C-alpha cells in the first residue's frame, strides 16, 4: 500500500495537574500483586460467605438436585472474590476511580501506562500499549493450547487403550469437557487476540487501539478467568462436555461453578475486546483508507468482533442463570419447578454456533491477507471476499437450531433451519473460491505461511462438506452424537481455524517479534501436525460412520482399529505441535532478524520499522492505493510500451507508403 506522509502538527496541550508520579497507583501493581490480592480476596469471600450461609440457611439446606446450597454459594463467592481481587491487584479499577473523581490522565500518565521505556516489566503490568497486549494474548493462547492439547492426548490415550480403562469415567468426562472449553477459548482468541491487537491498529494506520485501558482490561479479565476453569478438575470436574447441558450441569459437582464463572468473566473480556476492535476499525483507519482499500484481515476481525459482541451475552446469561439455579435455587432450567432445558439449549447455541465463525472467519481472512503477498497477485475478487465474510456474519444469526434437531424442540422449525444452515455454506465457499482464484496460475513462494494456505483449503473443504451433510435433518438423525460430528467440527475448528492461525502467526511473527519464524523447524512441525491430523480425524469419520457415539469411555470392539489409528495420529499431532512450539520459542530468541517489510507486503504495517516503535508511525500515514496492488504494470513501462507501439505503427505505415 503506497503511502504519503502527513505532517502532524504537534500542538502543545496544557495538562491537568499531575497528582503523583506518572502512573500513580499502577506503579505499585503487577501480576504478583494481582495474584496475592486475588487469593486473599477469594479467601475472605469464602470465609465470610460460609459463615453467613451457615447462619442463614443452616448446614442441611440443599439445592434442586440435593447439592448443599451453602457450599455452592461459598464456592461461587470465592471465585467472584478471586476475579475482583485479581483485577483490583493488577490495577484495573484505578482508571474508573480516577475518572469518577475527575482526575484525568496526563500525557505522562498515559505514557507510563503504555509501558514506554519500561523494558520487560511492562508485560507483567496493566499495560495499555496494544503491542504489549498482543504479545500477552499470544503467550496466553500458547499456554491454553498447550494445556488443551495435553488433555487431548489423555483423551486419545484412554480411547486408544481399548484393552483397559486408564482413567476413572468421571475424570475422563471431566477431561473431555475441560479440553473442549479450553480449546474453544483458545481458538476464539488465537487471531483476534494477538493479531487483532498487535497488527490491526498498525494495519489501519492508528497509533493505538481506540480504548487502550479497555484493551488491557480485556486481556487481564481473560487471565483472571482461567484459574476458575482449570480448578474444576480438582473439584469434581465438568462431566457434561463443553456444552454443559441442563439439567446435567445442575447435578454436577462444584467444579461446574468454575466453568460458569470462567465463561461469565470471559464474556466480559470478549465483549470489551469486541467494542475496542470495532471502534478502532470503524473510526481510526488512516486517511485515504476507504472501505474498498481496507485489508481483508481487518474485515475478518471486524466480522468476528461483531458476532462476538452480539451473541456472547446470550452464552453469558445462560451461565448466569444456570449459576443462579445452583446457588439461589431459581428454576430457569429445572423442569420440576417450571424451568426448561430447551431454554438453556437455545440460549447456549445462539452463541454456540456463531462461535464457530468467530473462530474460523479471522483465520480465513488472515490467510487471504497474506496469500496475495506470496503469489504476488492481487486478491482475486476482493468484493466477493468481503461479501463472503458479511454473508457468514448475517446468516450466523439463524443457524443455531440445527444443534437441536434431535431434542424434540419445535420440530417444525427443523427444515427452515436446515435451509439456513446449508445456505451459510455459500458465503463460506466464496472465501474458498477467493483463495483458489488468487492462487490460480500464480507462482507462489514456497514459504511456511503459504503452506498453511493449502492445508486450510483442504481441511475447510472437508469440514465444510461434512457440515452440509450434518445440517441435513434426515442425515443428522443418524449422525447426531457420533464421532462423525467430532471429526467434522475438528476439521473446521482445528483444520481451518488452527492451521490457518499457524500460517497467520508465522506470517506476522517477524513483525511482532522482530525475527523470522524458523522456516525449517516450523515447516517440519506444521506438516507433521497436518499429517497426524488427517490420520486422526479421517479415522474418526470412519468410526462415526460405523456408529460409534461420542463422549463414551467404553465401546464395542468393532471400533477398536479406527480408535487405535486415531490415537496414533493424535500423538503425531502432539509431536508436530511440540516441534512448532520449539520453532516459535527458538525463533523468538535466535531467529533471523527481520527487515521492516519482512515479506514485501503492501499493507501499512510494512511501512513502519521492525520492531514497531512505541507510537507505531513517526507520522500518521495516508493511504493512496489498495492493499493488494501486486502485478500492477509499472506506469512508466506502460508509457514506454505505448511509445514503442506508436513508433512501430508509424514505421509500418511509412514502410507501406
Amino acid at each position, binding site marked *: 500500500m503506497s503511502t504519503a506522509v502527513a505532517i502532524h502538527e504537534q500542538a502543545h496541550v496544557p495538562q491537568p495537574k499531575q497528582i503523583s508520579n506518572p502512573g500513580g497507583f499502577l506503579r505499585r501493581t503487577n501480576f504478583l500483586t494481582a495474584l496475592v490480592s486475588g487469593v486473599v480476596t477469594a479467601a475472605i469471600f469464602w470465609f465470610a460467605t460460609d459463615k453467613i450461609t451457615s447462619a442463614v440457611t443452616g448446614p442441611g439446606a440443599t439445592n434442586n438436585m440435593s447439592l448443599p446450597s451453602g457450599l455452592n454459594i461459598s464456592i461461587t463467592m470465592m471465585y467472584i472474590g478471586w476475579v475482583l481481587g485479581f483485577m483490583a491487584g493488577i490495577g484495573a479499577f484505578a482508571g474508573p476511580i480516577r475518572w469518577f473523581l*475527575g482526575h484525568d490522565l496526563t500525557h505522562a500518565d498515559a505514557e507510563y501506562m503504555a509501558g514506554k521505556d519500561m523494558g520487560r516489566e511492562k508485560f507483567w503490568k496493566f499495560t495499555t500499549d496494544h503491542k504489549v497486549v498482543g504479545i500477552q494474548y499470544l503467550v496466553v493462547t500458547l499456554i491454553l493450547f498447550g494445556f488443551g492439547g495435553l488433555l487431548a492426548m489423555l483423551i486419545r490415550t484412554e480411547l486408544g487403550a481399548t484393552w483397559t480403562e486408564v482413567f476413572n469415567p468421571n475424570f475422563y468426562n471431566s477431561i473431555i469437557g475441560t479440553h473442549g472449553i479450553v480449546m474453544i477459548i483458545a481458538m476464539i482468541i488465537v487471531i483476534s487476540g494477538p493479531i487483532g491487537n498487535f497488527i490491526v491498529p498498525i494495519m489501519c494506520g492508528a497509533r493505538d487501539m481506540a480504548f487502550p485501558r479497555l484493551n488491557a482490561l480485556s486481556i487481564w479479565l481473560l487471565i483472571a478467568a482461567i484459574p476458575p476453569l482449570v480448578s474444576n478438575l480438582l473439584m469434581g470436574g465438568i462431566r457434561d462436555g463443553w456444552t454443559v447441558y441442563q439439567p446435567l450441569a445442575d447435578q454436577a459437582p462444584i467444579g461446574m461453578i468454575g466453568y460458569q464463572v470462567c465463561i461469565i468473566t470471559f464474556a466480559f473480556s470478549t465483549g470489551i475486546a469486541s*467494542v475496542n476492535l470495532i471502534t478502532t476499525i470503524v473510526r481510526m483507519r488512516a486517511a485515504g483508507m476507504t472501505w474498498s482499500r481496507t485489508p481483508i484481515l481487518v474485515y475478518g476481525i471486524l466480522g468476528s468482533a461483531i458476532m462476538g459482541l452480539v451473541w456472547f451475552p446470550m452464552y453469558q446469561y445462560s451461565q448466569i442463570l444456570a449459576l443462579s439455579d445452583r446457588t439461589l435455587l431459581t428454576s430457569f432450567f429445572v423442569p420440576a*419447578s*417450571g424451568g426448561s432445558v430447551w431454554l438453556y439449549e437455545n440460549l447456549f447455541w445462539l452463541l454456540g454456533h456463531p462461535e464457530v465463525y468467530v473462530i474460523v472467519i479471522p483465520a480465513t481472512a488472515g490467510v487471504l491477507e497474506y496469500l496475495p503477498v506470496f503469489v504476488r497477485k492481487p486478491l482475486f475478487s476482493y468484493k466477493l471476499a468481503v461479501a463472503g465474510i458479511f454473508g457468514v456474519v448475517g446468516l450466523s444469526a439463524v443457524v443455531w437450531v440445527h444443534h437441536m434437531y434431535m431434542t424434540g424442540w419445535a420440530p417444525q422449525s427443523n427444515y427452515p433451519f436446515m435451509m439456513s444452515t446449508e445456505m451459510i455454506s455459500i458465503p463460506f465457499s466464496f472465501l474458498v473460491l477467493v483463495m483458489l482464484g488468487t492462487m490460480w496460475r500464480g507462482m507462489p513462494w514456497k514459504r511456511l505461511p503459504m503452506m498453511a494456505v493449502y492445508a486450510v483449503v483442504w481441511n475447510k473443504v472437508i469440514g465444510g462438506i461434512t457440515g452440509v451433510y450434518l445440517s441435513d435433518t434426515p442425515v443428522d438423525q443418524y449422525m447426531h452424537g457420533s464421532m462423525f460430528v467430532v471429526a467434522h467440527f475438528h476439521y473446521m475448528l482445528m483444520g481451518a481455524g488452527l492451521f490457518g492461525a499457524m500460517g497467520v502467526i508465522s506470517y506476522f511473527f517477524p513483525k511482532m517479534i522482530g525475527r523470522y519464524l524458523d522456516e525449517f523447524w516450523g515447516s517440519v512441525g506444521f506438516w507433521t501436525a497436518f499429517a497426524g491430523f488427517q490420520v486422526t480425524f479421517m479415522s474418526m469419520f470412519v468410526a462415526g460412520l460405523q456408529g460409534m457415539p461420542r463422549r463414551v469411555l467404553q465401546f464395542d470392539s468393532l471400533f477398536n482399529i479406527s480408535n487405535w489409528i486415531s490415537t496414533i495420529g493424535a500423538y503425531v499431532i502432539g509431536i508436530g505441535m511440540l516441534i512448532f512450539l520449539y520453532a516459535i520459542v527458538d525463533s523468538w530468541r535466535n531467529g533471523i532478524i527481520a527487515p521492516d517489510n519482512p515479506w514485501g507486503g503492501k499493507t501499512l504495517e510494512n511501512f513502519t520499522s521492525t520492531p514497531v516503535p512505541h507510537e507505531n508511525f513517526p507520522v500518521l500515514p495516508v493511504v493512496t492505493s489498495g492493499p493488494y496492488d501486486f502485478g500492477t504494470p509499472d506506469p512508466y513501462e506502460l508509457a514506454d510500451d505505448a511509445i514503442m507501439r506508436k513508433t512501430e505503427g508509424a514505421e509500418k505505415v511509412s514502410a507501406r507508403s
Partner: protein
Amino acid sequence: MSDSTATEIGRTLSSTTGEMVEVTGSRDKLGVWMIIVSCTTGTIALLVSYAYLWSLNVNSAWAPTSGSANWAPVWPFWVIFTAMFIATLIMWNGYRGLCSGKVAAMKSAALLSSLLLLGAFVAQIFQIARFPFGPADGAYASATLWLAIANGIWLFLAVFLAMAIFNRTRAGRVTPENPNHARLVAMFLTYLCVAAFLGSVFTTVMQDSPNTQSPPFGTFSQ
C-alpha cells in the same frame, strides 16, 4: 474514554492523546453504542427467558402458588422505571444546557439525576427484599427476580456514572467545549430506561400463563 482537555486556539484537545475532543468523542460515542448493543442482547436473553417460561408453563410451575407465595405487585416496577425516566430526562436537559454554555445547569442536573437514580436503586433493593415469593417458588419467581436483580445492577452503575458526571463537571472536566462524557452517560441512561420499561411491561402483562394444560415433563433427577 479519552480524557479532557485544554483549549488552544479555539480547539479543545485531549490531554491524554493530544487529539481534538471531537475525534475522541466520536470514538467514545461509537464505543458506547457498541456497549449498548451488547447489553441489549443480554436484556433480550432475560426477556426471552421470561416469555419462554411463561408460555410453556412447564409442569404447571410457572405461577408462584406454593404456600404464601404470590404474584409481585406491579406498581414498584413502574415507580422505579418512572424515577429512571425522569433522571434520564434531567440528564439530557443538563447536557443541552451545557452545550449552550450553562455549566451550572449540568452540575445541578447531574446531582439531581444521581439522587433520583440512587432513590431508584434503594427502591429496587426494597422491592427485591419484599417480593411475595422466594427464588425457589417457580419459574415466574425466578424470571421476575432476575429482571429486578439486573435492573438493580444497572442502577448501581447508573448512580456511579451520574455522580461521576457531577464530580467531573465540578472539576471542570465536563465543559461546554467538551460535553462528550455527559452525552455518553445520558445515552446509556436512555438504554437503561428502555430495558427497565420492557421489564415492567413483561412483568405487568405476562402473569398468568396462557398454557393452562401444560404436559408434565420429566424431572430428570438423578
